[in-house]
């Protein structure tokens, strides 16, 4: 990393309160508050969806109505009032854009503030951006270059229009509608999201990146992402998001589905820094996400890397179903909680095929009065001969009012499988801080340094430009956590 990058990080890290807490003034088209069959017909109608998709939504809605919102031991929060949420908001005007000049300058300004690399220069640096603002994609760059390779990278709505067969075939194939309370809700009301298709043998030459942003007050966000990697293909996908500061809790329940065919590899990286609420925990985002990848065929590989610093409540278990023989699943995670934040994250590795391999590296950092839980399941099926798992879960505590919890579940149905689990809990020591201070390093920066060191083997998995942002985020999110 160059000096100036680090300096920028440092400078931004010292700029105080949650810096992405602004609200832009964009006129939106809103759905009525509340959730009924009518709402779903409204959303589907707004988007000119085909009949089959409306039916699919309605089916999910019926299932959802009969489901109970889950409760967890280590998370507590006022339950969202589902009838008080606006389920659809689209930036106006809704027409399609030929170039960025046509996009509402307010929107562009917002992206600028966020540092979204939407302009061509940045895109040339290797990032094609499919920007999801509120619910509808308003701008897509570098689609042409991608389409030359046969790569489809577009909003979910566009995919429904232009590639209905692919969507119909794969939507819900990894995360079924009724998988859980939030996936059912998402399936019923999802507004938009991203779609990505990499054809056989194609290695996507750039990182595909989507920036999510919650913008409309009181609007639930229900994104849906579907990534399909055909035989022998490769793609690295980046997801990152920020949100404006708010007083009311905002619900986010996204679904991400990945399918990897024979010899295909998908790398999915997330930097999540949604508004965590103020020091007392007011106004943060509720983040209930279902992310799952299917290694459908042999030698496929799905790798989740996530850096979670935001949200008031996070509930998230990016998982891999290792169905193909010799398939590989990876989960690298850094979850930071500060003040009153609560996170319950982890992964599930489901070994079905022979000689399947999974690696889990989880780094939890808790500060303030926050609670940080790792919950992981490693399940070895009867036929998963010679499968292996390695899990490493490390917790770092800053101060003594926070909590770290580790819940590793193992279900092994095949004796030839090898499962290894390591766990550690440590505290940032006075000794370490004093050592840094004595060398001239201020406490906030010292914490950033120590925490980044603690997370190193996860951060090393992030693409370069993401790693820089993530490092910065770690520092920002832990500012003032000591002394």
């Amino acid at each position, binding site marked *: 990393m*160059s*000096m100036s990058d680090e300096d920028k990080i440092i400078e931004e890290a010292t700029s105080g309160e949650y810096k992405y807490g602004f609200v832009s003034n964009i006129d939106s088209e809103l759905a009525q508050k509340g959730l009924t069959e009518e709402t779903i017909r409204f959303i589907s109608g707004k988007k000119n969806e085909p009949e089959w998709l409306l039916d699919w939504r309605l089916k999910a809605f019926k299932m959802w109505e009969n489901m109970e919102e889950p409760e967890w031991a280590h998370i507590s929060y006022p339950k969202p009032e589902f009838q008080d949420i606006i389920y659809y908001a689209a930036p106006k005007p809704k027409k399609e854009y030929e170039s960025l000049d046509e996009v509402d300058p307010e929107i562009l300004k917002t992206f600028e503030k966020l540092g979204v690399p939407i302009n061509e220069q940045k895109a040339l640096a290797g990032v094609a951006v499919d920007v999801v603002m509120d619910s509808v994609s308003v701008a897509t760059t570098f689609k042409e270059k991608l389409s030359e390779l046969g790569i489809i990278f577009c909003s979910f709505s566009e995919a429904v229009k232009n590639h209905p067969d692919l969507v119909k075939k794969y939507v819900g194939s990894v995360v079924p509608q009724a998988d859980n309370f939030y996936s059912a809700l998402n399936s019923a009301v999802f507004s938009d999201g991203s779609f990505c298709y990499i054809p056989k043998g194609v290695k996507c030459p750039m990182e595909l990146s989507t920036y999510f942003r919650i913008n409309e007050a009181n609007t639930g966000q229900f994104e849906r992402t579907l990534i399909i990697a055909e035989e022998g293909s490769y793609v690295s996908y980046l997801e990152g998001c920020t949100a404006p500061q708010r007083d009311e809790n905002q619900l986010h329940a996204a679904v991400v589905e990945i399918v990897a065919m024979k010899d295909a590899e998908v790398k999915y990286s997330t930097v999540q820094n949604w508004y965590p609420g103020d020091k007392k925990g007011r106004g943060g985002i509720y983040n209930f996400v279902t992310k799952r990848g299917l290694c459908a065929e042999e030698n496929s590989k799905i790798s989740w890397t996530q850096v979670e610093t935001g949200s008031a409540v996070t509930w998230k278990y990016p998982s891999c179903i290792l169905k193909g023989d010799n398939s590989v699943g990876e989960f690298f995670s850094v979850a930071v909680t500060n003040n009153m934040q609560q996170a319950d994250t982890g992964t599930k590795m489901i070994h079905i095929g022979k000689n399947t391999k999974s690696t889990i590296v989880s780094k939890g950092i808790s500060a303030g009065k926050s609670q940080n839980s790792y919950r992981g399941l490693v399940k070895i099926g009867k036929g998963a001969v010679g499968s292996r798992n390695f899990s490493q879960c490390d917790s770092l505590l800053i101060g003594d009012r926070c909590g770290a919890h580790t819940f590793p579940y193992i279900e092994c149905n095949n004796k030839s499988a090898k499962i290894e689990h390591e766990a550690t809990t440590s505290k940032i020591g006075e000794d370490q801080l004093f*050592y840094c201070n*004595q060398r*001239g*390093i201020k406490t906030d920066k010292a914490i950033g*340094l120590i925490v980044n*060191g603690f997370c190193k083997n996860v951060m090393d998995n992030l693409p370069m430009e993401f790693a820089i942002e993530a490092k910065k985020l770690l520092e920002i999110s832990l500012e003032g956590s000591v002394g």
Partner: protein
Amino acid sequence: MLKIDGLEAEIEGKQILKGLNLEVKPGEIHAVMGPNGSGKSTLASVLAGREEYEVTGGSVDFLEKDLLDLAPEERAGEGVFLAFQYPVEIPGVSNINFIKTAVNEVRDYRGLPAMETKEFMAHLKEKQKLVKLSGKLANRSVNEGFSGGEKKRNEIFQMAMLEPKLGVLDETDSGLDIDALRIVASGVNELKSSKNAFVVITHYQRLLDYIVPDFVHVLYDGKIVKTGSKELALELEEKGYDWIIEEIEGKS
């Protein structure tokens, strides 16, 4: 440049420093010796600003500033460096990144811009050579898995990088083999100038063959009870501390 006057300090309610006086001028090297538990590391920690120690009396002036009024990182910015008796490990943070951060933080404190990468690398190479720190060690995590001697050498390396005005070395010679001892000593000697000063805490007069002190002090029960020249160290080596203790206890 450093004037300690009647310094009293306690930890967990136990008084350790009991009216300590010491004056250090630019260009000088002071050796501090004394039995285990007499308060040598406490003195070093109080100078560096360790919070656990409560200063209950006396004053410390450093370059016309009230040192006790400054936070530890500000003291570092003013040019105080402490080579720790027990250097701390910081897993996952490379030595280079650590020292680069430190160098630039100190520069920032002094109103200087961050060092350009090229300049920094040149500075690094030079100092690495000075203490014969291998590139491998420079790239490893701070002190993690370092041998005792390597840790001490790393302290001197950091000191060389930061070029302090006052270097306090707390038993940097303990646990060093004879070659490492020479390297550490020559590091200090190279850094030594008419503008800086060193306080060298040690149990062994051996080190003082290489780092020749202008003064040798005996710290006993929280006070400096005797000050002499280099010869005092030889005498201590030969006779131990009892005669001094008897001397003062006889007086009182």
